[in-house]
């Protein structure tokens, strides 16, 4: 695909969907609803950008949602039991990152394909999350300073949106303007030439997967603060939606390649779709079907990068 339609086609289709809901769905264009969408999108986009980092280095991460749930119950559990928020936050970020490092080591040292390695990590994280909570959720009246991390407004803008903006800008800067970001891109684009050029491709893969885990930790903290509760499956639904956001994003701006802006716009489109469908009175399962179709359609448009990441061909 080349040219304007090839580069912006799906973004325009997303805009058309948005305008359709503005016209067709009652209350969709209400500012409160739009802000609500943006809040949902921020979780999706932050996780999606983590996945984008992993995929940029040519690896899949199917563990980020369960890592986020695990980090959330760790953070929530500590807050719930009266530990200082700083400690709880550090624990959440550390757990997410550690899961990412584990993925990186499994992929680059033990040589387990990322598709399998991260699936295994996901299962382990899920088990640990249930172990930590004994299967129930942590709910309570939590430290207001902590809760504000996910609920405050700054000049009328939900703080979640600001966190998302910060992650987007930092990710863009790293990938577009730094050596390490470029080395990650080279690793995913052409591993052998990158290695011959002296790029430490294994370190780059570990970094990509670690960033994915770290951003799962970030999402966990924000999600826990926003809901002031933590449950062992709380981020599970974001697995498919965030991956769909990345895949949809790969059809725009830099077609065929994972890219941060695409992930952001993909996340917005998916957030808009699920919100709009609910407002139109569609049953919940319709969202799942639409999500599946988006995934298939996006991959059909940008297959090669994914095949390489999944199967090394």
């Amino acid at each position, binding site marked *: 695909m080349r040219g304007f339609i090839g580069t912006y086609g799906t973004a325009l289709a997303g805009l058309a969907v948005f305008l359709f809901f503005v016209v067709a769905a009652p209350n969709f264009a209400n500012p409160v609803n739009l802000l609500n969408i943006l809040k949902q999108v921020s979780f999706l986009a932050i996780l999606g950008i983590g996945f984008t980092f992993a995929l940029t280095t040519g690896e899949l991460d199917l563990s980020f949602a369960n890592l986020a749930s695990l980090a959330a119950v760790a953070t929530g559990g500590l807050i719930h039991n009266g530990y200082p928020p700083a400690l709880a936050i550090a624990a959440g970020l550390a757990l997410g990152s550690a899961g990412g490092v584990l993925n990186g080591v499994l992929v680059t040292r033990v040589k387990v394909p990322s598709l399998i390695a991260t699936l295994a990590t996901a299962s382990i994280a899920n088990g640990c999350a249930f172990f930590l909570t004994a299967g129930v959720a942590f709910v309570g009246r939590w430290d207001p300073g902590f809760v504000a991390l996910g609920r405050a407004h700054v000049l009328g803008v939900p703080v979640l949106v600001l966190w998302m903006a910060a992650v987007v800008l930092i990710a863009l800067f790293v990938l*577009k*303007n*730094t*050596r390490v970001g*470029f*080395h990650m*891109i*080279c690793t995913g*684009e*052409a591993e*052998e*030439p*990158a290695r*011959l*050029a*002296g*790029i430490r491709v294994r370190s780059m893969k570990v970094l990509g997967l670690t960033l994915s885990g770290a951003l799962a930790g970030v999402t966990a903290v924000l999600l826990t603060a926003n809901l002031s509760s933590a449950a062992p499956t709380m981020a599970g639904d974001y697995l498919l939606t965030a991956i769909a956001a990345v895949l949809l994003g790969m059809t725009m701006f830099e077609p*065929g*390649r994972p890219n941060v802006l695409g992930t952001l716009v993909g996340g917005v489109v998916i957030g808009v779709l699920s919100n709009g469908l609910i407002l139109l009175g569609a049953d919940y399962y319709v969202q799942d079907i639409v999500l599946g179709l988006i995934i298939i359609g996006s991959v059909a448009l940008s297959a090669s990068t994914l095949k390489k990441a999944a199967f090394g061909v």
Partner: protein
Amino acid sequence: MTPTGEPILSVRRLAKRYGAVQALAGVDLDVQAGEVLAICGDNGAGKSTLIKLISGADVPSEGEIHLRGEPVRFVSPQDALTRGVATIYQDLALAPRLAIYQNVFMGAELTRGLGPLRVLDKRTMIDQASGYMVQLGSAVTDATRPVASLSGGQRQSVAIGRALRWNADVVIMDEPTAALGVRETAQVLDLIRALNGTGKTVVLISHNMADVVAVAHRVAILRQGRKVIERPVSGLDADMLSHMVMTGREAA
């Protein structure tokens, strides 16, 4: 560029075994500064093995390598590259979806200060990469174009541009024209002359004797892991060279 007669790269008693296979069996060879040296030989003669050893892609079983008179042991192609020996692989080792300048500077990017940070200096990299393309006489000078949009010959100039970026003084090319058509082959031969014209020493592996006659100053012929002939190309034509490769003896 006229060869100086001074060896820039020499190998002595260089040998390589792969299990039971003696791929290279005690080769002595001097590459003279400023020359284009062709290495010829039948399939399995040991050409690629020789190149792997002097480019750091593999380590010798026996023998020595001297660079500018000093003994060296390259531990990786990267190691050889930083010491001025660049190898252009037959598959060129390029990232097709990345831009020309990104390929030229891959692994050795230029950066500039931005406050406390160091960021990629894209402007300078693009300008310098275009400069290399001009220097090599390439028709494509927009260094932001993706490599996938280039012809085979143009891709060779990107790969050579990378050697220029490293300021390598020895550039090794393994069958650069093997996959190319007539017109592109002519372009690559021009490229080799242009490269040699900038003072670089070129070691060229080729099965195409017409190419060898067209660009090389000297030729070394390998046969079953041994060097059987090393001589100037002048006075030889492609048929005589082919005959020498087949028989391992000087043409009558």
